[in-house]
């Protein structure tokens, strides 16, 4: 199920459910209440320990790793 949330000062207002603010624990409760399933990427996010802080050229980073590994 998808909901469109209106951006308000301090977070998001979920329509038809007055009083809720954008707090993580409330989101979890709402998900469970409404039976909202996590998306594929959201499930994958939960496995990530550390997110990169900037844009990365993955190919260049991988090639650099190979160069470092093989000493050229």
């Amino acid at each position: 199920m998808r909901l469109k949330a209106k951006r308000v000062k301090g977070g998001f207002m979920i329509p038809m459910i007055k009083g809720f603010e954008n707090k993580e624990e409330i989101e979890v409760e709402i998900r469970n209440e409404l039976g909202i399933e996590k998306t594929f990427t959201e499930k994958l996010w939960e496995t990530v320990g550390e997110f990169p802080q900037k844009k990365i050229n993955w190919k260049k980073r991988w090639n650099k790793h190979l160069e470092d590994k093989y000493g050229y």
Partner: protein
Amino acid sequence: MDTKILVDINVILDAVLLRDKVSKQLLDKLASSNVELFITASMIPTLDYFLTKYKIDKLKFKEIFFSRFSVITSSGYEALKSMDADDSEDALIAESFRRIAPDGIIISRDKNLNRYGLKVMTPRQVLSDIDNILKREGEISILNLQKQYRHIMETIDNSILSSIAEAKYILGPQVKEFENKLAEYIGTKHAIGVASGTDALLLSLRALAIKKKGEEYWSKDDLVITTPFTFTATGDTILRSGATPLFVDIDLDTYNIDTSKIKDAIKFYGKKVVGILPVHLYGLPCNMDEIMEIAEENDLFVVEDCAQAFGSIFKGKKVGSFGDTGAFSFFPSKNFGAFGDAGAVTTDDDELAEIIRMLRVHGGKDKYNVDHIGYKARLDTLQAAVLLTKLPYIDEFNEKRRQIAKSYIEGLRNVNNIKLPFTPSEDYYHNFHQFTIFVKDGRRDALQRDLKEKGIQTMIYYPVPLHKMKLFRSRSEIFGSLDNSEIASNSVLSLPIEPLMGDSEISEVISAFM
């Protein structure tokens, strides 16, 4: 045509590591659709490097990610070929993907991937055309062996490559392993892998002649009761074993042999009848209580033709475990199929098992001690390896067929002029190898043409009953009328029923009748 998509590692990482909203949105849309998603084995080291770098829980990641993505084997040959290109990494990805999906799409921002003759689109391009890309195109085919292969590609490729490398091509360890697992699955003491379902029937009949009559073959006067509404092999193996098929009509509700007519045929022909060969047609078991009771009362053998009924159950027991033997076919189009010809015989009888093992290797216990007229009818090691890999999926696939059948029955129940498949009671677990309808009022051929125009492929099993074939005209006995078989052959039509069919395909088939 199924949509097959390879997603570049960069796009995957952008989505998973929150670097790009478009990639994230796209991956979610693709994952929740029916498209087939791939990466290649050559991409795994790159993916793995970044999973380690960003401290990703690899076990959980694998479980989630590979629930939707399949890994395409990258071969040594493809790797060598890729070295001709400027970017061998990209070339290898393209070559491997092309083998599986020459009509597929690569999602990447890397413009260099365009060089390899495959369709390449950026995430933004795909997202903007997503409805068209997700739309299934082309016919709904009766069978999709390529898709079935892709579904379990990693384990199948591994089994085949390992078997080839081991080089034990004839009765290798995979054959024994498969036989043991098959016997356990069916619930018999023995399972003997043979070269085809036809061989399974023939070797069963020959072994029974040797055991019961002390002769290599039955004689022409020996009658084996069977149905005429079946594949040729059921009848021609009776002939090849020396006996004569005695055709008895079918029940028009089940399409299986009418057991009440078996009793009448035996009353008429008496001691000439030596056995019964029931066929569990389309995957619906015969009434094995009645058949085994008749066989016991009259001292007849029973060979079950289970070619279409792998995993079907009668009163809690798998078919193939009731008769003296069960004959199985693993032809590629069967609900449990190999990658070529293959079959097996199941039995609880030690003597029959021993004879069949001899018959499959020229008739002897070894090359130079030959007791019987044998065959070259071994199960190939490679096919055994494939079957071993597929066996764990069979119950799940049979259940999916039953769910599709349930959808068809619900969706088509108000359609005039057709009769839907019938299951007599809860005692029968129909595996729905085929979903066969009966088309009334002589409209079968017209309906088939109509469905074809709407992109729905159908098949007729079987358009000609055996007693109408030249082969059997002067080489069979017919008990009573075979009207039901003839009516069935003019009226039946099998719809697509493929365990990997999506809901949209099922709906399309149903809608085609409206």
